[in-house]
């Protein structure tokens, strides 16, 4: 059974205080696709992401991971398939050492010790940080923290990667490294971000959210190039698409 497909249908969600955060969102992401969720602050990006691994349960509508509808019962299964990288690495790195943090997920999956060690090694190699293994996470630089946070999710070997603002708080080199890393992943990717140039480089498809609704969806080059649309939803046409000369 393939878990690589994410389908969201008529998703609505209201927070307990009555705020209607999502008002009927639908989309489908196929195997290996990379989709960016863009939109102004408060458009519902983070709320939507929290539905994709069952942390929040929709008021109505449904989320499907592969063929399985996401419910409280299937949430544990979905969390194996969907790896979520949070906005602030400090929220994600809570163990005493990098090794323990990367091993946290695999140990929760109940894997054998050798397998856990192997996965931790592989995930840290994958993000280029094998030397940080025994360091405490709070000592790392922002870029290292981000890379390790991604490794903590890779070690669970998910099919789908969900990321909230992967490039914030990074210096240009750190940001570049994350972009190259994201491009190298063969996972299905869902990335919520304000970094539109990252979107152009990493995601061929984009969904524009505004006020809890998906107001536009399509090819990145078309949507991001549509200046009136972008301005109407608190965004802008990224510089990289403004002229035709090569930027990279």
């Amino acid at each position, binding site marked *: 059974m393939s878990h690589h497909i994410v389908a969201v249908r008529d998703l609505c969600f209201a927070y307990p205080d009555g705020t209607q955060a999502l008002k009927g969102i639908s989309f489908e992401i196929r195997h290996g696709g990379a989709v960016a969720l863009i939109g102004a602050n408060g458009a519902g990006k983070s709320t939507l992401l929290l539905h994709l691994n069952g942390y929040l349960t929709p008021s109505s509508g449904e989320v499907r991971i592969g063929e399985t509808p996401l419910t409280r019962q299937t949430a544990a299964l979905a969390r194996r398939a969907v790896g979520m990288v949070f906005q602030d690495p400090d929220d994600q790195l809570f163990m005493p050492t990098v090794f323990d943090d990367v091993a*946290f997920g695999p*140990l929760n999956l109940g894997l054998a010790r050798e397998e856990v060690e192997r996965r931790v090694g592989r995930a840290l190699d994958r993000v280029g940080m094998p030397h940080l293994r025994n360091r405490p996470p709070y000592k790392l630089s922002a870029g290292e923290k981000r890379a390790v946070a991604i490794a903590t999710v890779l070690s669970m070997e998910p099919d789908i990667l969900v990321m909230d603002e992967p490039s914030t708080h990074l210096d240009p080199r750190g940001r570049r490294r994350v972009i190259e890393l994201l491009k190298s992943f063969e996972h299905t990717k869902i990335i919520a971000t304000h970094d539109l140039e990252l979107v152009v480089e990493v995601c061929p498809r984009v969904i524009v959210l505004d006020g809890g609704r998906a107001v536009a969806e399509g090819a990145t080059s078309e949507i991001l190039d549509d200046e009136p649309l972008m301005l109407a939803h608190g965004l802008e046409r990224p510089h990289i698409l403004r002229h035709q000369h090569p930027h990279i």
Partner: protein
Amino acid sequence: MTPPGGTRMALGDYVEIGRMDELGRLDTPVHRLDARSKAIATVAFIVVVMSYHRYEISALLPLSLYPLVLITIGGLPPGYLFKKVIIAAPFALLVGVFNPLLDRQTQASIWGYSISGGWLSFGSIMIRFVLTVTAALALVGCTGIHRLCAGLERLGLPRVLAVQLLLLYRYIFVIAEDGLRMLRSVHMRSTGTRSPGLRTYASLIGHLLLRSLGRAHRIYQAMIARGFDGEIRVLRPGRWGWSEVVFTTGWLAFFAVARAWNLAEALGRLLTRT
């Protein structure tokens, strides 16, 4: 604008906590011992030190061998540990400070000076304080908090407590930084003519609490996302070999001997006889 002394002081402290962690990662014979053996020896040490009569001073002194050995073999910087002991000293002072006033009965005399029971017990409290706190700091310094927690857990400390201790330790840094940033912004916006009032600090602490709650919530989300089910699993190579047996039994035996006989007096008698 230079931040007021208070901020810098707190920042210094914060950096110093990190140093304890670095010490914990050193590689010396005591660092290599299993955390459990050191925890058992240190707890026994504290119990023995606390068990003496309140006027006891001389019998306590030989026990200082234990923290001294940990510090020396563990390569811990004595000055740094001493500063940490000083930070906690006011608590012990407060406990003992009234003894000399309340208990004026003469208990001993040295070179013609009579010493009241109050001063003896005050001295005894301070010595016990220095011994136990130094031993505890040396334990953390030559084990590392996470290995220590794992060791305590394997000795039967409830897992919830061990995990709480670990998370507390992990987020002290983050929350301290949060607090410092807020404090800095208060200082940046106060003109210097008037110190920020109690109301400002009350609100600041309230905000810090709310931020910490928000943070706790997000950490929980991150844990849930990685399959957390209420149990923290940690991979720890546990080894209880001969060196652990020798370390633990050796020290327990020493504590027992030191408790049963006043070694300082015995040494003194031995020296004066020859």
